């Protein structure tokens, strides 16, 4: 079974499950039944299924299918849970505790959707760059690049064509090489600054001799590499932050769900 077929199958199963749940919800409502209990238990079971991925990752000794398959199940089960969640909650959500619980679930759901989306788009974006970098190593590489750029700038100043390149380096490139990119760039990385710097470097050619042009070209290459590193770092950091957000709230969510279920049955009407 190839990936594409599996995706279509999982999508179909999810849609059928949502349709069945909707139908049963309607039937329960028409029967003057307790629709909240029905959707609540469905949501609880599906949420518990979502936690299985974490167990599978932790218990590596259990060879019960590849993690990728579990991940796919997690994604589609999460989609189903989101649909049931919308059926379960009333709108607007009332009550402080209920509101926090719903908000937590919503944050986890949205971050999960974001992860599902970005985990498919990010590799495609990263593939546009010829080189791949591991996130842990990027700071070291950036530091080394900054040191090399600084060295080239000093050499250029010693070549005697004036302080044109070194002045420009000090004014424009030094902050670029030694400062981290802004939060906005982390959220939405782009190449505007890279193109601007390269254009300015090209404009310096009229003031440089052949040695200076070589240094300018070397600095331009470094600008490209620094921007690539920044781009890699932004995309990977964004993915990691989203994942951290997705994971960090899971235990709190489990705790609140437990309290919610206890409260529901503690305060349930006595027949």
């Amino acid at each position, binding site marked *: 079974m190839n990936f594409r077929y599996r995706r279509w199958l999982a999508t179909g199963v999810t849609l059928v499950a949502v349709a069945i749940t909707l139908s049963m919800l309607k*039937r329960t*409502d*028409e*029967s*003057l*039944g307790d629709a909240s209990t029905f959707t609540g238990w469905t949501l609880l079971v599906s949420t518990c299924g979502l936690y299985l991925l974490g167990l599978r*990752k*932790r218990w*590596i000794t259990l060879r019960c299918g*590849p993690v990728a398959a579990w991940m796919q199940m997690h994604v589609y089960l999460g989609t189903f849970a989101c649909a049931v969640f919308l059926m379960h909650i*009333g709108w607007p959500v*009332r*009550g*402080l*505790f*209920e509101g926090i619980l719903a908000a937590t679930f919503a944050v986890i759901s949205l971050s999960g959707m974001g992860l599902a989306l970005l985990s498919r788009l990010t590799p495609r974006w990263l593939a546009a760059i010829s*080189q*791949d*970098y*591991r996130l*842990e*190593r990027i*700071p*070291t*590489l950036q*530091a*080394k690049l900054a*040191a090399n750029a600084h060295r080239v700038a000093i050499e250029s100043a010693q070549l005697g064509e004036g302080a044109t390149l070194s002045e420009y380096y000090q004014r424009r490139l030094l902050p670029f090489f030694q400062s981290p990119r802004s939060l906005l760039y982390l959220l939405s990385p782009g190449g505007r600054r890279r193109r601007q710097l390269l254009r300015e470097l090209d404009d310096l050619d009229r003031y440089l001799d052949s040695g200076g042009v070589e240094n300018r070209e070397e600095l331009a290459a470094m600008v490209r590499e620094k921007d690539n590193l920044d781009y890699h770092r932004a995309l990977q950091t964004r993915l*990691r932050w989203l*994942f*951290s957000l997705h*994971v*960090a*709230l*899971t*235990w*709190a969510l*489990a*705790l*609140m769900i437990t*309290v919610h279920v206890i*409260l529901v049955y*503690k*305060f*349930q*009407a*006595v*027949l």
Partner: protein
Amino acid sequence: MNPHTQQQDVRQPRPNPSKAWVCGYACLGAGCQTGPSGRGRCGMLEASAGPQTGCEVPLAEAVDDRPGSTAAAATCEELFRELGPCVPLRDNWYARRIRALQIAVLTAGLLLGILAIPRGEQILVPGSLASQHAQILSPGLDGPGCAECHPQSHSAFVGARTQDELCLHCHGDHLTGPNTGNPHDISWERLNQITRRSIGHPPSDLPVNFIAGETRSGERLESPQCATCHQEHQGSLHSLTRLSDQRCQACHRQKFTSFLQGHPQFKNYPESKPHRIAFDHSRHAEQHFAKQGVRFDCAGCHVRDDRQSAVGSVFRTLSFEKACASCHASAIGAAITEGWIAMQLPSLDLEDLTSKPSALAEWPNNARFGYQGNISPLLMLLLASDPQALQAIGELPGNGELGGVIAERRPQIARGLALAIRSLITEIDLHGSSAWKRRMRLGWQTALGREVSERESWLIDELSHGLSKDLFSYMRRLWFLDAANSQRRDPQKTFAELQVDSSDGISPSTHGNQDAPLLGDDLAEGAIRDSSELSALLAPQVEAPGMALEAAEVELLLGGPLAEEDDLWLESEKSTEDRVDVTGRGLDESRYRGWYLDEQLLSLNYAPSGHADRVMAAWIELTQIMSEEAAADVPAVDDGNALDLRRHLLSQQKIFTQCVECHQLVGKRTAGPWSRWQAVNEAAGTRRFTHFDHRPHLTLAATRDCKFCHVLQSSSHEGKPEPDFSLLVSRTKSEAGDDATSHVPHSGLGKVAGPDFGAISLQQCVTCHRPGGSEDACTLCHYYHIDASALSW
């Protein structure tokens, strides 16, 4: 292989994914394979012999990314010497787990903190309560809080009550029926009956389309809980009574999209109900009002504009004084001028009396002109406890005329009646109210063959209202004692003078305008007690701003039957001054109202005070009770005399045409003291299935004219049934004494005046009540909790 692009094979498990720490040189691409210890210490530092040899392999393959480094490769030992000791770093997944744990601990702490603080459970409330229930969780009240409605929430209340019981603990006053909790509070037998009736019929042929005990999806429906429809914790502004249309259609067989699309057509709406006032709108509009050139304005009788509201207060009927008196007061006044002869001494044959020595020598001379006169129904009741009189009454003809008795039996019957009447007057004179009431009740028991009910006893008290003991003293002394002494009274003497003349036995308190001395203290108290009762009854049932309304009032104003302003029972405390008509010309109606004696007719008369006279009403209602029981063929006693008495009473009753022409006296007798005289029908105050609020409609210019909805049907309309006045006709005939034996008394119950107005159609309503327009929810016009007794289907 590009040194910068080392990639992990994702298909292979990580070397040690569960390790919490990674080598500090990893960021340089030179992390050692063994990594730090579980406590985050570098293995090289922990080993006493220096760097571990195992680190050499990966480090030798690592790319030296150290800033400024020129080395192509490095070992752990070289990095150790160049960069210093390795500072292990937390692995990402471990950091995430720690973070998740911290948040979970923080959450748990907050939850425990919430439960620890007083009233902290309110933070867990899934939404604030509706404003009507908000006080339950008010922090200022020291109540059980959540346990007020959730018996299981606190261990002390486990198993105490069900939640529905807790609901009814407070709301039981509104839901008192025996079937409370059933769908629509209707018994399952009735629901099953409706269901069986609906099976096999198209929905359009049925007044109601309901599947008892089943939902639309075919599941068995048990008695729904209160919370099934009344959803709490939806915010303070949430309406607990507002239900979705889907809830209603869960049980109803005919499903439709909206009020506009698919709602069953109205059938005879508003439903014709038994009216207590026989008012023919079309006849009034086309004949009476037209004849006088007066505009027939609905507001004249149904809207009172003396209230501060947009349209005034809307009533089903205003009071008699405001709505009817302008035309009918004079007719009533003329009808009551002569008064009602409650009891009269019959005229006897003097020769019979004198030829047979008896105690009747003292029979008044004015009543010695042969066998004339009749025994009135009231007198029959009073005499019925006397066996001799009862036997004599049994031999009277249907009209009670003494002259109608066969000649051979006439002296004996007349003698028996005369003795009984004299004994009656003497007894009441001596014993007062107790004797009167005892006689009335005994007579009632004899006539109906059963005990006197509480209401009948009350009616007897009302009948006695204003009746002075002095009148009986006067009767006894001047009609009998004086007659025996051959003392004739000067007819021109005033009652006051007579009182002086015969001071013994007549209370001095009867002088002047002092309060009427009634038959006894208990009777007087009863009259006073009833006055307050009537006052409460007469209070207009209209909205009092800022006041909590009774359920019936709410219904009246917010969609129930129209309100009622019925001050029928205006108290008429009259003086007993000069209650003797010595002239025989009738009492001056402007001064004398109530009980009085007619010296010429030797009768005890009653002059009604006008409209809404309680004595007359009590008597009419008493006679009607007897009529109803006769119509229902209530088995009476085996005593033939008792049956005869009832026959006489029914045939001779003098029901005032003026009263019953308008008052049909329908409805339950147990509804209220004077409920059958009120214009409001018996279903008013009960929750019917359909309700309508007039007020918002009357604020609109387009619908302000009542005729927009209430189209008056012409009195000459062929399809319009005529008002059923058969009851009145039959009574009138019986009054004339045409054929007493053939008359079968009718019960007024259920007599329905024909509909004056055309039925309102669904199209009139959907003009405004449609999606996107005015509200069209089921509950806008329909109650769920209804009074099943008001159902007509």
